[in-house]
């Protein structure tokens, strides 16, 4: 049924792109947390115009499939950037922008709108008394945020972050549509070269499964470590 030799071959072939995929996923993940935190703060502090922008953006992303958003970005981002570079008289040819950058932008924007909800929820779960106590002990607002609120919010957000990372991992697999090479794209390339489709996809699936199991295990460990400290 499955050709064992091909399976082993494919395994090592695809293994070479795993670090690349994970690195890409980590980049997008960190970016999405940053953007998500920005969105959450905008919503929490009721910043006038930005709040409406964030709301519209979230509505748009809730309804639009990721692949459609990636295509929109792929076709429109170069000209958008080109418009701005021309406005500022920069000598930069935006049409050479790498598809990896486009994928990073598209996926991190999409995931950030989900991250915003997680982050908002976890910050809200820290009771206001904690901040008051910190302030009364002479912490500056920033210190209170960094030392008191964030560690507690992190415990709350961690399981969600773990699954968000996996969502990012899975989302990158759509990069093959815009010529970004990750685990899935590599599997497709290998399959096309030796026409053992099933083997390549099974190996790719097992790799994703393995990464997912690892991430779940690690977040579980880190979570219990954080819980033991608070």
């Amino acid at each position, binding site marked *: 049924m499955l050709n064992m030799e091909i399976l082993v071959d494919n395994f090592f072939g695809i293994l070479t792109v795993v670090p690349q995929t994970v690195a890409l996923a980590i980049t997008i993940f960190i970016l999405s947390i940053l953007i998500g935190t920005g969105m959450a703060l905008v919503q929490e502090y009721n910043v006038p115009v930005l709040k409406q922008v964030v709301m519209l953006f979230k509505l748009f992303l*809730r309804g639009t499939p990721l*692949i459609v958003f990636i295509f929109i970005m792929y076709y429109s981002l170069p000209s958008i950037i080109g418009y701005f570079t021309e406005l500022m008289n920069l000598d930069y040819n935006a049409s050479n922008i790498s598809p990896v950058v486009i994928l990073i932008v598209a996926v991190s924007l999409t995931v950030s709108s989900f991250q915003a909800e997680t982050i908002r929820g976890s910050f809200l779960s820290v009771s206001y008394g904690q901040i008051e106590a910190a302030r009364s002990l002479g912490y500056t607002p920033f210190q209170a945020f960094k030392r008191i609120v964030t560690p507690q919010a992190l415990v709350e957000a961690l399981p969600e972050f773990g699954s968000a990372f996996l969502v990012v991992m*899975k989302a990158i697999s*759509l990069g093959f*549509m815009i010529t970004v090479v990750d685990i899935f794209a590599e599997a497709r390339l290998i399959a096309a070269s030796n026409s053992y489709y099933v083997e390549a996809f099974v190996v790719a699936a097992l790799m*994703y499964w393995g990464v997912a199991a690892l991430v779940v295990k690690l977040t579980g460990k880190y979570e219990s470590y954080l819980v033991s400290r608070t």
Partner: protein
Amino acid sequence: MITPSTWEIVSLLLDVAHITFIILLASAVLGLLLGAVLTMINVKNIPVLKQITVVISSFTRSVPIIIQLFIVYYALPPLLGNFGINVTSMSATVAAILALTLYHGGYLTEVLRAAYKAVEKGQHEAADSLGYTPTKKFFRIILPQTVPVALPGWGNALIHLIHDTSLVFALGVADIMGRAELIAASSFGMNQVQVFLIVAAIYIAVTFLSDGMVRLFEKKTQKFKLDSGLKAKRVA
């Protein structure tokens, strides 16, 4: 081909919308059934079958849907061929429906299991002590209380499913996305952004329809919710 106007693009896309909807509806219904069966196996603790459901739901949730689509499309015909079932002529649409059903079912197991577990043990005991048969107990006591808890999760699962139907064109199904690519390619890439913005608008409309439907169900089933937890019961 001359660049088509916005309305022409809309009508071209809506021409093939029924394929997307058939895939969506079929996998939503079948997925719900599969999810229900898997949940039943899981909560009834049937030995070997339970481990299989755990594997299925773990697999469908940690592997990208695009790989699941390709695996079903390429691996199912030879796999079934081993058992003497000839499905070599399985169309891409059928493969897409099967893959999405598996995905949706695996996802829903988690939702349904949590909802089932949310029904208090006392409810089971009370029904038992009043002499309900197991079937009667399930349909009259447990199910009505499970539904309102499961609805928000089901709504989210539906939205994921709607988003994921946009990927079936990778198998060669001529759905909305497939047609969109054709339109974008035939006008020498002049109106790609416009075409995909229209596709996005169609998907947004479908998502909001499904959101509205789930909200309607939530309203209708709210009376089954008992006043446990944080929220006191709203008087109907």
